[in-house]
């Protein structure tokens, strides 16, 4: 019974934000919060680490830049130099202005697509995956907080009630 959680349902994002602060003050561990929309400041209140996707975006952009330069150099210079509009294509640098739009688009393409894929993998999302969402109401207008339970059921329930939870449940873990 070590991995048991208590679920508290809220119906207002401001109440939820204050509840998060209070529960963290009492040193309880909030496992996850399900919300119907992004709540401003919730990540900071929960003490989540800052996202590292920006760093990945930069790296992916650099990969895209490299791939694009290699690709266009091979296509337009090495493999089959083309004469377009009276501009014979013999060196990469002399034709660079014509390649910049392609290189730019490839950089953006790589950064954007790889970022989305990274985000999906990191969030453990893939096609046909069953929702992890414990309560369908959180896709409508309710907020659900999942707090770790360490045999302190009574105390926690009282605290959650006090913070304005409208419904508190302890789901039975069917998988075990």
């Amino acid at each position, binding site marked *: 019974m070590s991995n048991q959680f208590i679920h508290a349902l809220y119906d207002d994002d401001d109440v939820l934000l204050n509840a998060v602060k209070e529960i963290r003050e009492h040193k309880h561990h909030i496992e996850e919060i399900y919300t119907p929309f992004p709540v401003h400041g919730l990540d900071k209140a929960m003490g989540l680490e800052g996202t590292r996707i*920006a760093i990945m975006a930069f790296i992916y952009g650099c990969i895209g830049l490299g791939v694009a330069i290699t690709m266009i150099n091979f296509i337009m210079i090495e493999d089959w130099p083309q004469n377009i*509009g*009276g*501009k014979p294509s013999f060196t990469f640098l002399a034709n660079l*202005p*014509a390649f910049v739009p392609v290189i730019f688009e490839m950089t953006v393409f790589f950064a954007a697509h790889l970022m989305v894929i990274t985000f999906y993998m990191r969030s453990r999302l893939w096609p046909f995956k069953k929702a992890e969402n414990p309560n369908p109401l959180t896709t409508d207008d309710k907020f659900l907080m999942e707090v770790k339970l360490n045999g302190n059921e009574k105390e926690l329930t009282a605290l959650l009630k006090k913070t304005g939870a409208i419904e508190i449940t302890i789901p039975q873990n069917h998988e075990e």
Partner: protein
Amino acid sequence: MYTFPNKLKNIARALMILGFIGLVLGFIGAPKNIAEAKAMVTSEHHDEGHGEAVEEHAEEIHAEDAHEANTHAEVSHEKDSHVEEEAHDSAHDEHLLHQLQNKPWAALYVAAFFFFMIPLGVLAFYAIQRAAQAGWSPVLFRVMEGITGYLLPGGIIVIVILALSGMHFNHLFIWMDPEVVAHDKLIAGKIGYLNVPFFLGRAIFFLSGWSLYRYLSRKFSLAQDESSDISNHKKNFRISAAFLVFYIVTESIMSWDWIMSIDPHWFSTLFGWYVFASMFVTGITTIALVTIYLKSQGYLEFVNDSHIHDLGKFMFGISIFWTYLWFSQFMLIWYSNIPEEVTYFITRIEDYNITFFGMVAMNFLFPLLILMNSDYKRTNYFMIMAGIVIVLGHYLDVFNMIMPSAVGDQWFIGIAEIGGFLFFLGLFIYTVFTELTKAPLLAKGDPYIGESERFHY
């Protein structure tokens, strides 16, 4: 209320005096006649580093034996000239004289225009904040209003320089010279638009329009501080929206008139946007620099690092926007390779290689890499560093727009150019910080001021 510290006041005065001396030296140093001009060029070629590039260029032309088109004075010095070439040479010498005589004027004009475009860019930014009813920026309104205080004095100086050109004190605008127009069919065809009275009339009309908006908006902004309703705010919203329409049209025409017409054979349809991007990013950078300076002096305690962060995002974004326009203008002309268009970039790449590509590094690569990280945009040190590079880079941008057509390959960032920059920098600092002392630094009556003070990221 802000008080203009004596230390800064003295720095501004010192800059003005130094700059003035530099400009005077530049004007004294300009050649009076052809002999002096020739002597200057020959001696320059032996002493100055810059001469070497020209020399190499000249030698290349020797080798190719193509000395009829763009040959430098140097070629005629070293070449055993035929009789027909002599007439050609004297025309070149006179051209050289004009270029060297233009040099201090161009240095003055580049600096005057550069510092004038900062308040104009800030005014556009300010009007956008007003028209969009932005919630984050009202704490910065007084800083912006302070900077736009330089609009009228700076604009008058630019127009005086333009008027002096119209009175033939210099040859910055060759279409103002009836001699040139008489021998030039292309310019003659544009004379209905490019003539001195209409030109100056437009300039005065534009500056009056911008100054009128600036005056009214400042008045409503100050009135809003003491007012119990938001009627002044609404008026400001309305005139700001109207101003933006007026601005984008007049700014475009201004850029054709004041910059593009220096080279009256060349035209680019996105030139207005290009100049706009330059003034916009310089203006936003200046807002950030002034704000950070005031904060470091203990003022603007209500400005937090999220405001600085937002200014940093704008600096980053508009720098990229500028690069996009720079590249769009360049690539289309490079690709189509039409002689009348492509000369513009050939001059810049051959004679202005360092400044032309150096400014791309300063205006694009440097801010791109420095300001990409979101934490750096909240660090004053990085913002100041990026800001100074962006401001200098856009000075070079204006330099590259004006100098090649005004002085050709005779450019040099010397005492006149630095003097011009320092003089207008001093005047700019003096005017802006005097304007800042005239009103409280917090626009406390603005309906969005609370939202702006609480603004965080």
